[in-house]
């Protein structure tokens, strides 16, 4: 039996509460609020207390999908990445950098946001990168 607790930051609102995810044999089984964190001081809201429930939902996307004959169909990572990259390249070549736009995310990490805007600006050559700050 492998039991661990992992301290991390909540994925819901902008409060940024900290808690421990309880992990038993690779399954996230519960959430324990962090008592020493300056934002939540051992408290959580109903969403935070139950944050472990969606993580391993059976509805999670588990494999890449490519639309074939109008239907999203499971594909390998190689196929999906090639499809994405060849599509982006063809559009950049035919219509220029500013014909491509990116929506980055208020849900992913700082590091991921940084990499996506770097990819948009340095690789594709466009500043058309925005996210849902206004929504």
């Amino acid at each position, binding site marked *: 039996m492998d039991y*661990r607790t992992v301290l*991390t*930051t909540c*994925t819901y609102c*902008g*409060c*940024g*509460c900290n808690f421990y995810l309880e992990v038993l044999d*690779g399954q*996230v089984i519960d959430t324990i609020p962090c008592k020493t*964190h*300056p*934002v939540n001081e051992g408290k959580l809201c*109903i*969403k935070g207390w139950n944050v472990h429930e*969606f*993580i391993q939902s059976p509805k*999670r*996307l*588990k*494999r*890449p999908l490519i639309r074939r004959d109008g239907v*999203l169909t499971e594909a390998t990572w190689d196929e*999906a*990445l090639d*499809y994405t*990259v060849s599509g*982006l390249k063809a*559009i950049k070549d035919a*219509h220029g950098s*500013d*014909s*491509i*736009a*990116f*929506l*980055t*995310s208020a849900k*992913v*990490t*700082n590091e*991921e946001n*940084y990499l*996506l*805007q*770097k*990819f*948009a*600006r*340095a690789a*594709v050559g*466009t*500043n*058309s990168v*925005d*996210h*849902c*700050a*206004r*929504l």
Partner: protein
Amino acid sequence: MTNSISEIEDADCVFIIGSNTSSSHPLVATRIFRAKKKGARIIVADPRTIQISSLADITVRHKLGTDVALLNGIMHVIIQRGWHNVSFVEERTEGFEAFSKGIENYPPEKVAEITGVDAGDIVRMAEIYAKAETGSIVYCMGITQHTTGVDNVKALANLAMLTGNVGRESTGVNPLRGQNNVQGACDMGGLPNVYPGYQPVNMMDIQKKFEKAWNAALSDKVGRTVPQMLTGLTDGSVKALYIVGENPIQSDPDTHHVKKALAAAELLVVQDIFLTPTAEMAHVVLPGTSFAEKDGTFSNTERRVMRVRQAIDPVGDSRPDWQIIQEVSNRFGYGMDYSSPEAVMREIASLTPSYGGITYERLEGEGLQWPCPHADHPGTRFLHEGMFSRGKGLFHPIEYRPPAETVDEEFPYWLTTGRVFAHYHTATMTRNSPTLDAEIREGYLEVHPDDADRLGVLQGDAVTVTSRRGTITAKTAVTDRVQQGLVFMPFHFIESNANVLTNPAHDPVAQIPEFKVCAVKLEKAPL
């Protein structure tokens, strides 16, 4: 936020406007409850009666979109009665003359007519806030999601400066950000006009700095915002859209327009953890991971950068988003070779002055609040101490402008939207959480009892709601939380998608859509 969450509990006055705090930011509400217990006066201004109204010393329900008028009315009273902080205004600000001249046009009696708030209440609000030693303003999307969003925020800044409630502990102008890392996405340059750390893309020395660091030629042309991307897709100037962890089909105003735009894309790439309504339209879907399956950092609403730590392996064949982006970039021909998110943070710190002193090692424990410019800097609990970023604080004269859409004979009801306590945004996560799903399973429309009588509907009856953009059906929740003539809907539920109705008209500067105000008609739905 100019100040920190923990400081709110020591304020003498908390002024909450356009924030359903206990529902949307419960752990900020906790601090307001504590402030109340310690003797603070609480002011709530919201078009609806919300839970936190119940502990307020004064609560007003102003008409949708009349925030500027209400705030100007409060400031009119403060200036007329000499309750403003003269020394702060003289030493720390400029533009007071022109500003106070403009405010003369907003006597409480006139503001009462515009806002529907009793003139006596306006005077009481002014007195409580202005006479507090430390007054903290707390606001949320009820302030920003308007065609006058920027004006609303500037009016709040005027109010804080007028009373000297900025640059000190337990004061400030404090927006509560709705998403865990919306602050970080902005900080990291997830915006069309700035690189990380809000460094403008159209300034030559900044461009040169990033060209050198990234070894690439960069564009000095400001990019497209979300609404401009959608317009671009519709008119053919945008051909490809790559979406990471967003669900615009449900989160953006005027869903029919959004769908049409996304359908026009030659290439729609969606990277997400669930097959959202937006992912269902994609040409290719890349399965990313949740926060529990990767390392990294989030930056919260008080600018606190905190660690995210991997707890489990990625679900199925999904991959951490940073690895997916790196792989796409490498295949595209632009090399990225980061061994870990920590390596990415080292590069961020080297290029982003406000994150200059941030390392994973230093984030252990409580994290760090930016600005944190160097390795010995302790971080910044509250901003604008002694001086504003621009030097002196500038008063902006702001005139009241009505919302883009107002009620008329055909569409006689005001509609506003928001969140409920058990769900989060487009609910892709919370509706997949059995406990939260059990709390609230479907959308609803809050209707005042008199309006329900007029429509001939009872609690739970279905009504059709129609705006100039579309029609949806929802069950009624008959309640006096809303005033007569006003209806409210949460936007979490795709089956009764409130954003089919909302107005995409947006603020000219911030381009934020007017989610909080549109005009609708209601009809009893056929059985």
